[in-house]
């Protein structure tokens, strides 16, 4: 977004405050089944942390009414980019009619500007960039991955799995589950021997130049591998590869799919799922998968394919879903804030009294698991596969 576009964007906000609260269920507003809108504002309290607050601050900074102080920077950084404010924004329409007001882009603009102007960024972001330069993953760990014999056998397959940093280094049970599911279903899905971070966290924390060099390496590395479809469990990797790479003109010569898209279109899946005793599950919509990429139905279709699984929706789901608190670098830089948001969401998911809480994002699994067991969708498939 350039300066002119930004100024136009800032003027689109009519200041109604629907980015703060939107208790639905009243009269003709019934379909807005939510309560509060901004998870960060609900923890930190001041309206400065709503989209409206950030927009007013952004305008003041552009008009040089106020410099980009450390507090101003923290206001732009303490946002998970969950997009709930955009989903409920009334500018140019009613909620759920796509708004022209791109709050996430506005916040990203200011994050990029902070870097451009050479201002200090949270140490955690500096560390992530350092780690990526040194090791190619956000955790700064030596390149390793649990051995996945079946996936590794298929290194020449036309479908390749992109594990991403979180699955490779923190939530490796997701990879193990995928390995086992693919083996049982005899799916020809491979995994590359080496992988670099997709760069999503850099893009979302404004570190564009480091991200570009990573994207360039990934483009060359992945395009050379010659597969046709890349599937990933991580909505961050999915979104970066599918949306951000083309935006920055890193053309990829393969299709990018989220794992839920792939499995929901797999006709033989239902034939391999065994009957079991009835269980109740609830599903947490990851923000980047749901609100950002509109993948709501596919994970639900998979869950409904499993015999005797009853899906109970949490109070806020799909477009209204509450964030897990991990997004856009918030978990790394502001762990306390992130944990409080995650707890709010965990409580709400538990309110459905489920036997299992399911999601389709390793970052959400990581965040929500602080309070109890959370399963990635591939793990529940693994549990019920014959």
């Amino acid at each position: 977004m350039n300066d002119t576009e930004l100024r136009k964007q800032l003027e689109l906000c009519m200041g109604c405050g629907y980015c703060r609260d939107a208790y639905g269920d009243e009269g003709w507003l019934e379909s807005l089944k939510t309560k509060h809108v901004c998870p960060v504002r609900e923890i930190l309290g001041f309206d400065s942390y709503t989209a409206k607050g950030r927009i007013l601050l952004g305008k003041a900074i552009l008009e040089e009414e106020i410099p980009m102080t450390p507090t101003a920077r923290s206001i732009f950084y303490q946002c998970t980019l969950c997009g709930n404010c955009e989903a409920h924004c009334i500018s140019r329409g009613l909620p759920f009619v796509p708004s022209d007001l791109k709050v996430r882009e506005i916040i990203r603009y200011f994050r990029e500007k902070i870097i451009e102007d050479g201002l200090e960024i949270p140490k955690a972001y500096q560390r992530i960039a350092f780690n990526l330069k040194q090791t190619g993953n956000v955790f700064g760990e030596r390149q390793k991955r649990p051995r996945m014999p079946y996936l590794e056998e298929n290194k020449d397959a036309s479908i390749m799995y992109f594990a991403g940093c979180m699955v490779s280094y923190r939530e490796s049970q997701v990879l193990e589950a995928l390995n086992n599911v693919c083996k049982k279903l005899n799916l020809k899905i491979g995994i590359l021997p080496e992988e670099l971070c997709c760069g999503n966290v850099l893009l979302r924390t404004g570190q564009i130049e480091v991200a570009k060099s990573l994207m360039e390496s990934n483009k060359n590395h992945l395009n050379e591998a010659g597969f046709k479809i890349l599937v990933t469990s991580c909505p961050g990797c999915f979104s970066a590869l599918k949306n951000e790479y083309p935006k920055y003109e890193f053309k990829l010569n393969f299709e990018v799919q989220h794992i839920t898209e792939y499995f929901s279109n797999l006709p033989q899946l239902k034939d391999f799922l065994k009957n079991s005793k009835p269980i109740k599950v609830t599903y947490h919509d990851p923000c980047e998968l749901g609100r950002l990429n509109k993948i709501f139905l596919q994970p639900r279709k998979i869950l409904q394919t499993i015999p005797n699984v009853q899906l109970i929706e949490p109070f806020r789901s799909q477009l209204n879903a509450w964030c897990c608190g991990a997004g856009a670098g918030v978990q790394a830089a502001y762990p306390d804030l992130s944990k409080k948001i995650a707890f709010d969401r965990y409580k709400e998911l538990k309110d459905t009294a489920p036997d299992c809480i399911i999601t389709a994002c390793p970052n959400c699994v990581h965040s929500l698991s602080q309070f109890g067991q959370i399963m990635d969708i591939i793990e529940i498939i693994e549990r019920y596969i014959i």
Partner: protein
Amino acid sequence: MILTQIEDTYHILKEIVGVDNISIDPAILWAYSKDSSILEPKLPEMVIRPGSVEEISNILKIANEKKIPIIPSGGRSSLCGAGYSLKGGGIILDLTRMTTVNITEDGLNVEVEAGCTFSKLGFELKKQNLTIGPPGPFSAFSATIGGGLSVNTYSNYGANLYGVPSEKILSLEVVLPSGQIIQTGSAANPNAKPIFRYCNGPDFAGLFLGSHGTLGIITKASFRVENRHSEEAHYDPVFDTIESCTQCAIELTKTRYTGMIMQFAPIFYKQSGLDIRAKGGGLLVNVFGEPQNIEYRKQTIEKIISKYTDMTTDTFAPIFNAKDYQKYRAWCCVNGRWAEIAGFLPFSQVTDYVKKVEEFMHKNKDLINKTSLIPQFGAIYTLNCVNIFVLLLVYDIDEEHFEASRLLVKNLTDDLLDFGISPYWIGKAYSRAVFSRLRPEYVQLYQMIKKLLDPNGIMNPGMFEILEVGKA
């Protein structure tokens, strides 16, 4: 305040509300610099998020002693210039931490803290199949009870059957500028519940309703509640003449079967390209009922409508069935800035009002064409009168055009006030135009009350010029 005074005050008030609920950081303060009106932003010096009436009382005692301006604030979603520091400086009291809702056991009343939004109140009441009737303004998601009552907010939905939110008030809890906490109506007796408004002497609730935070801070309100209707039907007839449209609306209102009647001027349909047949404009009619009576009510309403027109559109009903937002977007899209001029008229003046606004549009055609301003106007029928509205949607951020738009808003406001509308909200945006037309005795009474309750003039300075120290 000078810098040292701000810091001193900050340290004192921090002890009352806790460090997490107070800020003098400009980066935090900018979020509190504006409402939804077309007025320019102004920065306060401090924002506090009190958690209780006692905290507010203690804050006001200190502010009054130090003569520091206090600006109570809720959702800041108003279109009239309210809820933020209109002169710059001072302390914003953001009441949105105070959101408790208590429904009485008998399900007939509800007590709600001022920072609760109208939509949260509706949400809690709905759990018991209750409603206050008018569910709040168009900005009900973010507009708070305290803010709404302070500007005498309106509610389109339900107004035709229940009136406006302020009419449902039983009792208010208010903190005076001195820090004293008062209860109005029955709750003035500490042994009594807040269940009745007109007792224990004068109706003091009425003093604070619509006072725009100039006399004290509303911290709690008790409303009378109703059972929610379970059935609803929608009609959107259009008419050959404005007269027939208005007459139909009046007759429908008298049935008391309708929860909402909105009348839209012919120009509205032309601009939207929705129905060129509507030479006399059209209505959106919502019928409220229960399973046992809805069919009879529908027949009655249909019979009345058929006396005046045989033309209907499918323009609005689906929207209010919450099924088709796209159509709503087609006519209600807003883009950054808008102004609304609204106020009450008797039913008998609706036709003249529509003609008057059309005349104004025609007379100012060149100026309107020069700007990106798109006027849309109509009327909402309440129990015994109509609330007319003119929405001026400003589609251009060009400052020159925007200034021209402001001029149009001002001129139209003047014209309509001279015509006799009584605006329910005033705010900074319309205060000069409104108060200059009121009877001097009325303004003097307001000034005397202000002087009595707020001798240091700390409450919401800049809101109404007539109340400024020296003028009062």
